[in-house]
Structure formats: C-alpha cells, structure tokens
C-alpha cells in the first residue's frame, strides 16, 4: 500500500519500542484478552492455559472472577453475577426474563443495580471487575503495564451501553484507545488474514447480543456500509427456551433461585452437546428433591428456537437494504460468536445468503484477535505496510424531541463516524427564555418508543416573539460512537451555550469517588499505579511532540518553536517526580501549546495526500 510512504503525523513510536496494547472482548458469557506478538494476534491464557474467562463475578468477602466465580453459581446464585453485559446502560424494565433471574435488583436512575453480599453493585462495577481480571492476566503475561486497550462492544449497542462500557474501563484503570464494534473487529481479523476484497457480511450471534454488519473491504480500507441487530438476543435466549421446555416437559413446580440456576446450566450444556450430537439426555436432581429426566432432540431444539433464528434475519434484511444491496451481492458471510455453532443457525444463514458461511476462524476468539490488531495499530506499533483504515458507522439514529412527543432525527443511522450535524430550532412562546432539549436514540417516530439519552436546559435566551430565536443544536459523534451535544442561541449579540456528555448511572463525580475509594483501600499500590499511568501518558505525549518537531519544525517560527520546547522541558522535568497533579498540568499546557502546530501539520498532511492530483489531471 502506498499510503504510508511519507511519515504520518500520528506515527511516532520509535521502531524498537513496542508498546503493550491489548484487545479485549468483553462478552456476555465469556471474555478474552488478546495481543499482537511478533506480528501475530494471539489470545492470552491464564496460568492453566485457558483463554476464555467466564464473564462471571462472585461477591462475598472477596471478589472472584471467572471460573472460580462460575463454580459458585449454583450454590450462591444471588451473589454470583452472570451475563452482566445485558444490564449495561439498562433500566429494570428493559431487561427480559427478570422473573427467572436470581438477583436482588435495585432500581436506580438510568441503570439497574444489584444488591450483593458486598453491597450494591452497578453493572459498570461488575464489568470493571471482569476487565480488571483481564488486565492482570495481560500484564502478567506481557510483563509490564498496558499502554492502551481496545474494547469491543456490540455494533448495535446504543450510546448508553457504550458509555457504560467506557466507564467500566476507566474504573478498571484502563486507557481506552477505542471502543470497537464486535463485527468490525471480526472483519479486521478475517480480512487481514485472508487478504479479502469485496463486500462481506459479519453475522455475530454472541451470548446476549446479535449484530449484523455489511462491510466493503478494498485496498486496505474496511468500510462499514450498514449495521443492524438486536442488543438483547443471543445464545442465552436459546438456553432460556430449553429451560422453559424442560419445565414444561417435567411439569416442574416454581423453582428456587438455586434450582433455576442449576437447570439453566443443564439447559446450556444440552444446547452445546447438540452441536455435534443428535440428541441430549438431561438428567438433574433438584434441591427440591424432584428428579428431571428428559431427552432433547435436534429436531425439537430447532423447533423451539425457530423464531429466535428468524429474529436474526429481520435485522439482516434491514442492514442489506440500508446498504442498498441484495443477499447475492455478498461475497462471504463471516460467522462470529459461540452461538453460531448451532446447526440450525448455520443452516438459516446459508439458506438466506445462498452460500455456505465462513467458519475458518474460531468464532469465540475472532473478535478479541481483531481488537488486538486494532489496539496494536492505535498504540503506534506500526510495521511497514501495516496500514489500513477503518470507517465505521453509528447503529441507531440520534435525534431531539420536538412538539407533540415526536422525534426530529439529527444524525441518521449508518452515518460514517465521526459525524456532526447541526439543526436549528426556535421558541414557540413569546418571551420564552429557556428551552428543554431531550436527546433520544432510535428509529421510531415517537419519543416514547426511543431511548432517552439526556435532557438538558438551555437558559438565557433573550426574550423575543415566538419563532424569532434561533437555537442551533449540534450533535457530534466521535470515533467511539459516543455523542456529545451542544446548543447555542445565536441572535445578534446574545449567546448561551451548554454542553452535555450523556452519562448513565454513573456521573463523572461518582467515577472519581469510586476510583478514590479503591485508592484508599489499597492506597500505596493504587497510587503508584495512577502515577505510573500518568507517566506513561506523559511519555506518549512527549514522543508525539518530539516526533512532530523532528518532522515539521519548519512550520513553526523560531519563537513558537522555543515556546513548545520550553513546555516539553517542563513536562520532562516533572514526569520523573511523583507529583501526579504537576504531570497532569504540564501535559495540559503542552497539549494547549501545540494546538496551532497540530493544525498546521494536519493541513500540510491533507495537502500532501492530494498533491499531484491537480484539477486538470482528474
């Protein structure tokens, strides 16, 4: 590829220095961490050689994560949190099958919480504990502190769910380089592995979420054309169907929390067994003394889960249509997620696309491997020719509530990110001085059918007759798919301005206080860790600025250059000490002091990209 022949502004890592970066697949059922080692993406295993970490956390005195927690599941279901991903950014009313879950839910504003033996836990904290276990595994395996991570999220996750995931990473002390959509991660792993070109579909049925993405792969660019899905549909639902079927067959009375969990575990095992066998024997002795002995055949299993499989095809059709394509335009269908092992899913996908799906990458690992490749690139560990670009989209439209509870779409779904759009609104009453802005996400016309993301008030509008004020509302979606909203009243001479960053369940203050709490508990360790993080960040910034100075000092006047060098020296001076605040301040100053320089370099870079292609040549 010829794109990288001249030095890139972002490319600053010295060739010999390898930064520790990992990709994390934070799954509903299992999680993984992977990294790029000697040019190869590999999943990192625990000390017993297992790469999958069950996404299970047990709270009782000590915090246990993974297999140890899973072992507690049947004995202590209330304090053993499984499939917490389903609760991320969700209120109690959004969660399916609440009645059969053994938890003590606490309804909280924005996001549900869980009461455990170790106090009330938000799904963000539970996820942070899983991320923490993966971080420890990675740091032990790589022998150092991580520079940055890429965490994958279902493509169909909305803003609340994405924000919750990012909050969990912050709580686990991770530097998030990017939130990456799971099917896109799989496409990276698959596409780079097979040097594929053309249009591909990624069908990703995980433990609790379903995504379908349509991508165009060409000349090192992965462009997502459309995405769709269902953020509450996955392998867990198949377990649930089997669970209900067993209850029906064995005519069981209402179950205790422990028996429910026990039976669900057997249902899951039967489902997995049926991938390679014609029938599964389910025999369980329940705590109630009842004895279950039923036989589940593949035919019955297909029948009772038929509409779940069908439910994945509706978003698939919609995504194809959004991309302006038909099933026959697809060159290959990449299967991702453990639930795609089920034969009835394979059959349905093959039938719909009229071709056998691609299964040559481990569906459990492919997302983490793709995330690791992306993390490696973003951390600056670029090898020659190792340059490709990812253009992703937002999955759901973003809009504002207007009169009558209707939604005015501001950024439509499947817009390439980052994206920004501004819209003008006006007052409807004479002398109106404030306006409430209600930000929503979803495809439906009515506000009540969409997800409410944030509500904020714009004050200080000068009193005018109705319809005279001009309020410009700007939506900005960043490369993580996260939204920030900005409103401005712009009649002559009067300006009011407010900025919101929607955050769910956890405010910035809450996160800070949680972090402080954890510092107090293990103060020395945590303090050193935070200091080390600041130092790593400072080092990264210094390298970036120094590399920029080496390449483009000519863009600065002597005076400007001296000023930047001054700020560099100041940061160098404080970063070896242990005053974290001084390091933060010096970084801030250097960031601000190089803003103009960065702008000039970016301009130059774009001009170079287009150089030699004069109007007359086109």
């Amino acid at each position, binding site marked *: 590829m010829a*794109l990288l022949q001249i030095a*890139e*502004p*972002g*490319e*600053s*890592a010295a060739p010999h220095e390898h*930064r520790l970066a990992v990709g994390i697949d934070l799954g509903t059922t299992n999680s993984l961490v992977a990294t790029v080692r000697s040019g190869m993406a590999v999943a990192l295993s625990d000390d017993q050689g297992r790469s999958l970490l069950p996404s299970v956390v047990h709270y009782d005195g000590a915090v246990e994560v993974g297999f140890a927690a899973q072992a507690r599941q049947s004995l202590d279901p209330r304090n053993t949190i499984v499939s917490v991903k389903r609760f991320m950014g969700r209120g109690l009313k959004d969660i399916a099958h609440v009645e059969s879950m053994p938890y003590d839910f606490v309804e909280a504003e924005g996001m549900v919480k869980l009461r455990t033996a170790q106090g009330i836990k938000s799904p963000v904290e539970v996820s942070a504990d899983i991320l923490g276990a993966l971080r420890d595994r990675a740091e032990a395996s790589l022998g150092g502190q991580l*520079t*940055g991570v890429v965490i994958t999220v279902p493509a169909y996750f909305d803003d609340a769910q994405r924000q919750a995931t990012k909050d969990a990473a912050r709580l686990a002390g991770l530097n998030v*380089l*990017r939130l990456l959509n799971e099917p896109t991660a799989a496409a990276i792993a698959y596409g780079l592995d097979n040097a594929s070109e053309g249009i591909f579909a990624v069908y990703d049925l995980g433990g609790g979420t379903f995504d379908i993405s349509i991508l165009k792969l060409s*000349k090192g*660019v992965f462009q997502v054309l459309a995405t769709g899905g269902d953020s509450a549909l996955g392998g867990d639902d198949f377990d649930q169907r089997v669970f209900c079927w067993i209850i029906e067959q064995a005519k069981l009375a209402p179950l205790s929390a422990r028996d429910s969990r026990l039976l669900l575990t057997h249902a899951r095992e039967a489902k997995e067994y049926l991938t390679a066998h014609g029938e599964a024997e389910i025999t369980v002795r329940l705590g109630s003394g009842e004895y279950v002995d039923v036989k589940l055949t593949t035919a019955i299993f297909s029948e009772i889960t038929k509409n779940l499989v069908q439910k994945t095809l509706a978003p698939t*059709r919609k995504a194809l*249509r959004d991309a302006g394509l038909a099933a026959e335009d697809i060159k290959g269908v990449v299967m991702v997620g453990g639930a795609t092992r089920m034969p009835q899913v394979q059959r349905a996908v093959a039938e719909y696309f009229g071709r056998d799906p691609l299964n040559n990458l481990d569906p459990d690992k492919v997302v983490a491997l793709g995330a690791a490749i*992306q993390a490696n*690139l*973003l*951390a*600056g560990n670029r090898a020659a020719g190792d*340059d490709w*670009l*990812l*253009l992703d989209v937002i999955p759901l439209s973003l809009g504002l509530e207007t009169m009558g509870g209707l939604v005015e779409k501001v950024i439509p779904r499947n*817009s*390439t*990110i*980052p*994206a*920004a759009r501004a819209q003008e609104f006006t007052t409807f009453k004479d002398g109106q001085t404030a306006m409430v802005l209600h930000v929503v996400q979803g495809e439906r016309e009515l506000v009540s059918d969409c997800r409410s993301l944030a509500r904020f008030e714009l004050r200080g509008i000068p009193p005018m007759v109705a319809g005279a004020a001009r309020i410009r509302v700007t939506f*900005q979606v*960043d*490369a993580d798919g996260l939204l920030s909203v900005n409103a401005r009243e712009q009649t002559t001479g009067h300006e009011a301005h407010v900025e919101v960053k929607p955050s769910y369940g956890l405010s910035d203050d809450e996160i800070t206080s949680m972090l402080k709490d954890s510092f107090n508990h293990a103060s020395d360790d945590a303090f050193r860790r935070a200091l080390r993080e600041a130092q790593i960040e400072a080092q*990264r*910034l210094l390298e*970036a*600025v120094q590399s920029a100075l080496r390449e483009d000092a000519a863009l600065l006047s002597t005076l400007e250059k001296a000023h930047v060098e001054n700020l560099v020296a100041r940061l160098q001076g404080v970063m070896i000490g242990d005053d974290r605040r001084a390091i933060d301040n010096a*970084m801030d100053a*250097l*960031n*601000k002091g*190089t*803003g103009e320089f*960065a*702008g000039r370099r*970016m*301009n130059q*870079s*774009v001009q*170079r*990209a*287009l150089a030699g*292609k*004069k*109007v007359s040549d*086109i």
Partner: protein
Amino acid sequence: MDFGQDHYALFGLPRRFVVDTAELERLYREVQARVHPDKFADAGDADKRLAMQWSTHANEAYLTLKSPLKRAQYLLQLAGHDPQVEHNTAMPTDFLVEQMEWREAVIEARDAADVAELDHLHHRMRKEISTQYDALHQALDERADYAAAADLVRQLMFQEKLLHEIGDALEAVDA
C-alpha cells in the same frame, strides 16, 4: 484547518455537478487515511480534537458530493441560489397531477401485492429521475441557469421520495 473551505476544494475537485464518483471515493479515502482519529489515538489531545474535526468534515463533504441530489443543492447554495426546499412548495400543476397519479398507482400495486407492477414502477421512476439529473447537469454545468436547476431540485425531492416509497412497498410485499 480552514472550515470555510468548500467540499469541492477539500478534495481538489472542480465545482461541477458531474462528478467522477470512483475518483471522489479514492480521494475521500486518501484524506481519511491522513486525518482519521485512529491515526491519532496515541497523540495529544490537540491532535485528537483536530483529527475528529477534520474527519467529521471529510465525512460530511463526501456524503454531500456522493449523492447527486445533495450535490445539486450544495452547488446551488454555493452559487447563492438557495432552492428553499422547505418554504417554496410551488410546483407546476402538471407535475403535481403526475405525482398524484404515480402515488395512486403505487398504492394500488402495494394493496394488490403486485410485485411485478411495483418492480415496473420502480424501473420507470428510476428512468425518469435519471432524465431529470441529465437536465440538472445541463442547467448547472452548461448554462448556469440556477433558477431552472432549483426547480429541478425541488421536483427531484418529490421523485426520490417516491422512489424510496416504492422500495418500501416492495419490501413490505416481499416480506
């Protein structure tokens, strides 16, 4: 960055209605390869912010120039001839009558679940739209007749919407 720079200038393309879309896509990718936030994930905050702004701008410019209708509206706007699509709804009577007839035909075919007829309507509408774009090319690139171009843009908004609705009807009947 010069945010006042127009979308054509960003990609170094001539300000014309007819655009080589393959070339546009190539230039878009080339610009994104330079400015995308992924290229600055390990850089300082100033770089990150700029990358987001540039990349957003490139996406917006590409989106505008890729669609012939958006492109035409944009050219009119650059020429200082706002087509006033929201306020000016005046249309020639024969065009409106024609549109009503179209709409009736679509509803009839949809209610009868007549896929062949819907396909036929879809094909005819696409042909009509394509003729309109030829006329738009003449008006904008050859004659600089912005008033005529604005009229065509307003009509095309109707027609593109109708085409979309025929697609919806096909989808609904097919399902």
